[in-house]
């Protein structure tokens, strides 16, 4: 039943554990990655992100637990499981003395069914057409990153794993990569697994984020994107000249909390306008209205207890 109409999670991490010496690097990590989502893997430096990824792609042995990719165990059916995976682990290290094309040719020979048209197509997709016949040692970091993406998607994987993909990219490159990854997930149904310690980046890129600290999974939460925000209640700061008066005025209808330079209310979008009208009608000066969204960063720091990196 599972194999023919497989619609469950593409990847399952089951009690994944890694012990090196006496240290438990990864502690019973259990995680399901759904289809067609950009899934973020967030944690401070040294929390075990890269180790987890290395275990997912079979570069490191699991001390305990298993990783199931499309129904195949990475431990016992490595070749079947890894066929569905494309990855960049840490930096996109390529053979520098070969050209970009020769690098792709090299990896294309290792998976059956990759035609030379497919290679050209992927080169075009990542925008390297004009430089593909140059040696990789002449490439900039951004171009190597693109070549890395090309080799990872060449065989049409169902799981794309990128370890810190925005490292060394300029803002334009980051934005381009972000858009591209979202497109891969939405249009081609690929599950993209991205690790990062850059919180703001993850917020923009991912549908869901798993947070890991000291090898333990702390939380998995989905991230709201624009459009869903309208109906939601958020914490709104009104900057006014007389905060006390504003508080008293609104006390009956909307209970507020005094804040620096103003008052905050927990209200939805429409109410913001209503409160504003009332304040202005009462003769108060409103200097600014701001939604105090708790950013992922705040939540993250809250959860991981600040700089408590072990």
């Amino acid at each position, binding site marked *: 039943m599972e194999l023919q109409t497989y619609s469950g999670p593409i990847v399952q991490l089951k009690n994944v554990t890694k012990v090196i010496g006496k240290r438990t690097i990864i502690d019973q990590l259990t995680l399901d990655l759904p289809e067609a989502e950009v899934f973020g893997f967030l944690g401070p430096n040294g929390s075990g992100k890269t180790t987890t990824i*290395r275990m997912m792609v079979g570069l490191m042995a699991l001390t305990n637990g298993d990783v199931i990719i499309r129904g195949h165990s990475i431990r016992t059916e490595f070749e079947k499981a890894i066929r569905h995976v494309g990855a960049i682990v840490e930096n996109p290290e390529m053979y520098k003395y*070969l050209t970009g094309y020769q690098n792709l040719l090299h990896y294309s020979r290792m998976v059956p069914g990759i035609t030379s048209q497919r290679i050209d197509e992927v080169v075009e997709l990542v925008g390297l057409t004009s430089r593909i016949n140059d040696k990789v040692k002449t490439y900039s970091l951004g171009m190597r990153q693109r070549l890395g993406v090309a080799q990872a998607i060449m065989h049409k994987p169902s799981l794309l794993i990128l370890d810190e993909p925005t490292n060394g990219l300029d803002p334009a490159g980051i934005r381009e990569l972000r858009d591209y990854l979202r497109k891969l997930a939405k249009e081609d149904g690929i599950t993209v697994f991205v690790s990062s310690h850059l919180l703001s980046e993850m917020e923009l890129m991912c549908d869901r984020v798993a947070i890991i600290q000291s090898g333990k999974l702390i939380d998995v939460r989905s991230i709201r994107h624009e459009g869903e925000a309208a109906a939601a209640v958020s914490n709104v700061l009104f900057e006014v000249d007389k905060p006390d008066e504003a508080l008293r005025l609104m006390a009956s209808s909307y209970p507020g909390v005094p804040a620096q330079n103003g008052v905050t209310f927990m209200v939805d979008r429409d109410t913001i306008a209503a409160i504003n009208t009332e304040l202005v009608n009462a003769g108060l000066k409103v200097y600014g209205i701001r939604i105090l969204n708790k950013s992922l960063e705040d939540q993250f720091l809250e959860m991981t207890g600040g700089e408590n990196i072990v």
Partner: protein
Amino acid sequence: MFDFLLLVRNENMKLYRRVRTWIMLGMITLLVLAISIIAKIVSDGDVDNWSMMSIETMVLFQLVTIFTVVVSADSVAGEFSTGTIKLLLIRPWSRSKILLSKYISLLMFALVQAALLYVLTFVVNMLLFGYGGSIVAQETFNSNMNPLGYMLVYYFYQFLGLIIIVTMAFMLSTVFRSSGLAIGLSIFLLLGGSTIAGMLSMLDYAWVDYILFLHLNLTQYMGGSESSGMTGEGMTLGFSLSVLAVYYVVFIALTWLIFNKRDVAA
């Protein structure tokens, strides 16, 4: 099977797209030319092509071994130090097969060099010194065999020794994941090994007979099956081959075992 040949093709591409490889092949060519031309100028015409071919082979086969050791020591360790091993191992191929494709391409590289050396030393010396007939050859080699056939047997014995050294370098490369250490250690053992072995062979212990370096130079058996070299009395070709075979199996087993088990954290 066809797919596996593609892996070997990949390894060959990585080998022959490097300038280093062509410098090595170029050096072999140049040295053969240089030695022969100098011999031609210096000699008074009493040199024949067979003795030149034999001398050059003796010297330059050592170089072929060193080149192959350098390339094989770098083969696995290089992928680790540049980090490319990670992208190489996340393909639908077992680690054993990837390692085997590397090993095969290395042996092919050794074969290419040996063939180049054989053809060059024959052709160049024949052009410079003329073709010495069978009587000349018999005098040079002290054997009734066809001279080219004799050289072929000589190459074969040398090649067996080369395989052992190269396999050892390949093992060191896999164990230490450091090209420098693997190259240094292999060449030290290759060059210093015979000296150490020579000293040890004077000792009167039974285990001395089983030291690898006493058996690497199989050409010492070419006069007959009894050893004529420093290995001393009592050694036979069969005994040397058995000792080498045991070392070979151990090297190969360790290499594959370690490569398969090891966590890749480069």
